[in-house]
């Protein structure tokens, strides 16, 4: 089977994720979309790994999963603490870091 289809699916998922990050305002959904983008990258990595017949790409995919898990933990922790402080759960309202 040609590698092209895998890459197409991967690109599609990545684009959906990117569009979600850009469009949605809830941090929870943004985190989900980020996860989509990471997994798209994982798919591409595994596909390339198979194409070259080496395990490097798979190892990288595992590492990306670990990083993604960490990132989600931090992100969810932030969201929970925002909720506890009764801050608006909306990335557009949280803009105190402007110049």
């Amino acid at each position, binding site marked *: 089977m040609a590698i092209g289809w895998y890459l197409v699916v991967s690109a599609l998922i990545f684009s959906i994720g990117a569009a979600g990050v*850009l469009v949605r305002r809830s941090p929870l959904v943004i985190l989900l979309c980020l996860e989509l983008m990471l997994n798209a990258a994982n798919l591409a990595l595994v596909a390339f790994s198979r194409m070259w017949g080496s395990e490097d790409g798979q190892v990288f995919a595992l590492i990306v999963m670990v990083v993604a898990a960490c990132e989600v933990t931090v992100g969810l922790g932030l969201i929970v603490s925002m909720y506890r402080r009764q801050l608006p759960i909306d990335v*557009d309202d949280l*803009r105190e870091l*402007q110049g």
Partner: protein
Amino acid sequence: MAATTFGWLVLLCPLVGTAVIGLGYKRLPGRSPGWIATAAIGLSFACAVVMLVEILDRGSSHRELTSSLWSYAVSVGVSAKLEILVDPLSVFMVLVVSGVSTLIHLYSVSYMAGDRGYTRFFSYLNYFVFSMLLLLLAGNFLLLIVGWAFVGAASYLLISFWYRRTTATRAGIKAFVINVVGDVGLVLGTFFIFTHTGTLDFLQTFAAAPHVFHHDSTDLVVGCLLLLVGAFAKSAQIPLHTWLPDAMEGPTPVSALIHAATMVTAGVYLIARMHPLFELAPTAADVGAVGGCLTLLIAGTIGLAVTDIKRVIAYSTMSQIGYMIMGVSAGAYSGALFLLMAHAFFKALLFMAAGSLIAAMAGNQSLDRMSGFRRALPFTFGCFVIGGMALSGLPPFSGWFSKDDILAYLNHRGGGFEVMGIAGYMGAILTAIYTFRMIFRAFFGEPCPEAKELEEGHIAHAEVPTNPQTGEVEDTDVGFPGPEHHIAEREWPMKIAMGTLALLATVGGFLQIPGVDDAIRRFLAPTFTGSALAAAEPSNGADWIGLVIGAAIAVAGVAVAYRVWVLAPGTAARVRERFAPLYRLFVNKWYFDELIDLTIVRPVAWFGQVQDTVLDRTLVVNVITGGAVTAVGAVSAAVRRAQTGFVRYYVALMLLGISGVLIYFLASAS
């Protein structure tokens, strides 16, 4: 243990003393800091004596020992070691310095007792002794420079000891600035010598010098002249002398220790230490001799005119150091170092006696106000007279043997040096006159009110303490002189210190009686082996002729002073009117302060002002820093606008950027 071990111990004792007194200033009660300091220096002196014994045990050709504690830096061509050199010259100097310092510490235990800064005083004083011993024991140029700068700092701290007295702080700054000129000279001189010899070590330098330098080669002469700048600044020789009279603003024990007995003789030591170099560069040595000769005459004439008792003694110090510098530059090493020792004894004694006198005057130092203290202060009077006789060179006191040793050498050497010998005899008569002027004015005649009060049994106290120079009203709190004064008659430590020095000033000269013992010359000989000038000593007969002439001149000077100030008291005023222009020249100190102010201080101040207005304010502030600030401000204002705080906006920008880069690489790859 080796002699060098005791050399390190000599250094360690005062350092520990400084640390203990400095750190424990809150816990040490009463006079204990003074006793700790005295004990530290006393121990140091004991170690120096052991060092002397050890070195005398060795054969005379094995008396130069070095010891290195560790290498501070070893890199291409430079080896900077923490190294001391123990040889007869350094041992001699260490003995004089630590011995006289011990006595002056002992004196200060009582003299400074009323002062609120008592602990601080002794911490500084111990620090000074440490620095001075470091300077003397240094085995290479590096450590010498360190010690040299340390004594300058200690001198500054102690001159401005009464730091709320404006005259004292100003004098401290002046001394420090002029001493820094000397430090710079010393460092540059070292550089000139180092570039040729390639070593900082003294003994290696002296061994290499004859091979790398021609006789009187330009670089060596320049190097030695720069060393002379250092020596002249430290030893208060013309034209770098103006700080010494002002340094009398410090407490009297400081004047005795630093500005008479020890630190100011560092220049003499430097030239004696560097004698192999100076003998290779006779031009520089001659400059040194001429400078010393001028100083001894000019300082002597000023000493005749000023009326502040401490300043009279200060000018006499300059004049005596002029003799030493002249002697040591011309080659009379043992004579000059002999005078250095004798001078340390009698000048410290004179200052101590003057301190007692000033205490009896409740801090006033003017000779115009003092008279008739003979009965009120019998012990001080005796000490002052012994010191004065030694200073004037009356036989058989130490000043007589030592000064005339130098002058006999100069006359013997010939070749123009006789002129300096004659100048030296002129200086000697001036010395005798101004010394006995002090004695006759302060101790003879009708007792002044303070003396009368003391005869009735109590020391005069100022109603309101004032600065004797300006008359400003002062506190007696910390930073100003304390409320009480102490005279030698009532304090046994002062009595012991002065009594010992009086004894030494009297018998110190017997160490080197020409043709009898010659102890100092023989002891110092190992340091000066190989020196042609040291070998060319005059015969004993010539020495004795010189001594007789010196004695006659001193007696003549005393007779003149007796005639002018005791037999016919109006004479001084008549002479002053008769030679009014000359008197004005002397009393204004030959206008050296004004000359330096006009030629150096004002132009530099003007230059600084121009720098301030044109360079600093206009160019730097407005153009360079101001321009940079405006530019950075404008750029950051523009960049700031991009920071909106919208997370999604940042993400969009990131995506755009990464896509752009990717597309570029894809396009360039195909």
